[in-house]
């Protein structure tokens, strides 16, 4: 352990370089994980409260209204039906988009039609049966239009998968580079200590005794790099929204970062340690024949 500490300090410049490279590799991976988490979160939120909005004719009769409501409620995929009147829709819009109030005032009339909002059962939006149901209601007298954002959920999920795949791809390349760098740093350290290793062999040191400090060095470099990357990801998640401000509006949700889960964070740390071990071992097996 003390030998490993000494080596880490003695060759600090090259060790610092390898920690930086490892950190950058894991940072790339972590950033894409974080983006992917956020997109997945958005998709989950959307699918949790998946709502089909049936826009009704402004002059719909009470009979048609109750007929439509019953037809919607009859579907097993629908858990709740809410009627949103024209006035209510107007107020909701004003509340959600206060910056557009002036435009509404200039219109002079209320442009919002009444609607039924049918909240779907969780997960039921994936089924194609729901499309049949929507089509059926759409043809009922008094229903003018339907809004169903299933495609958005799918898009979010695809984007999340894409972000993760890009992360794996770029991170993978950089992790491979880090592996090579660790391997070379350990090789240089082995060469630098060649005389000492030779003496250790002659005084009866076991292979493990000789190799252990190098393995500890590799693991330390890997863990330090990955911990540093986690710290930077944390800072990024904290600081990025401040940098971005509120100019993106609704897009803010999608472009943001989300904290890595505990298992993802642990994976990064374990990945760093593992890379350190493998990098060291590949070097030791080639350059430290005992």
């Amino acid at each position, binding site marked *: 352990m003390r030998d490993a500490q000494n080596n880490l300090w*003695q060759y600090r410049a090259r060790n610092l370089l390898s920690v930086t490279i490892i950190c950058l590799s894991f940072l790339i991976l972590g950033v894409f994980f974080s983006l992917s988490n956020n997109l997945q979160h958005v998709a989950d939120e959307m699918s949790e409260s998946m709502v089909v909005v049936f826009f009704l004719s402004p002059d719909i009769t009470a009979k048609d209204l109750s007929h439509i409501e019953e037809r919607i409620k009859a579907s097993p995929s629908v858990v709740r039906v809410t009627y949103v009147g024209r006035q209510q829709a107007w107020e909701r819009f004003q509340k959600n988009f206060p910056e557009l109030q002036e435009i509404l005032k200039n219109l002079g009339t209320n442009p919002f039609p009444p609607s039924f909002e049918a909240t779907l059962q969780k997960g039921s939006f994936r089924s194609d049966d729901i499309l049949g149901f929507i089509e059926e209601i759409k043809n009922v007298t008094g229903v003018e239009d339907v809004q169903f954002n299933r495609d958005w959920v799918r898009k979010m999920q695809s984007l999340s998968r894409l972000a993760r795949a890009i992360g794996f791809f770029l991170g993978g390349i950089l992790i491979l580079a880090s592996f090579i760098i660790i391997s070379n740093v350990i090789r240089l350290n082995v060469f630098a200590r060649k*005389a*000492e290793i*030779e*003496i*250790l*062999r*002659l*005084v*009866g*040191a*076991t*292979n493990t*005794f000789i190799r252990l400090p190098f393995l500890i060095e590799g693991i330390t470099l890997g863990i330090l790099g990955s911990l540093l990357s986690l710290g930077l990801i944390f800072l990024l998640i904290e600081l990025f929204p401040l940098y971005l401000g509120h100019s993106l509006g609704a897009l803010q949700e999608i472009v943001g970062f989300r904290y890595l889960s505990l298992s993802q964070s642990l994976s990064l740390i374990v990945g760093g340690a593992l890379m350190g071990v493998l990098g060291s071992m590949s070097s030791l097996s080639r350059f430290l024949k*005992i």
Partner: protein
Amino acid sequence: MIELYHISKQYQEGQWALLDINLHVLKGDFWFITGPSGSGKSTLLKIIFREILPSRGQIVIDGINILRLPDHRIYRLRRSMGIVFQDFRLVFHKKVFENVAIGLHVLGVPLKEVRRRVFNALRLVNLHQKMWEYPSHLSYGEQQRVAIARAVVNEPQILLADEPTGNLDPELASEIMSVFKEINKQGTTVIICSHDKELIRHFGDKILFLFKGKIIGKEVLPSSKR
């Protein structure tokens, strides 16, 4: 203690570095192996501590055929030996204390005991006052004595030394040889390769003469204990 049976070593086809060496070294012996450069002295030592394998023959040390030792067990053999090289093989970025203690760290000796034994080993070679200096600050003879202290610190059963007095002035060489004699008196079997005739004449008990890889003579001087 050390039994060599028909040991031969060939580095290149047709060129024998050693040829049919037979030798029995008893516990507590003090042997000199001598001969001109290229006679196979160092090769013989390397074979004894299993740095290299012979092309033919067998070596038994303390009843164990060391040629049958698997690689991962060689460390056990080496722990029973102390080895001094002509080029010292010191670690120059470590202090004298750390250089000598290296063999004890390998054995997992507690630090307090390490300090005691390193001090004693350095006192034996009269270098205990330079324990906290770097080898590069020491003279050639002092560096050699550090190498000897490192070889004896774990009280080995066998001490092998390859030209330990090479390039030293006669006075210093004699001083170092006295240290070996002292270690030998404590029961350690000592084998020294040297071509210093004067030294051998003065300190030799048992002498093996090599020439072009062959034994050309063995001599047991009257001063020998046995």
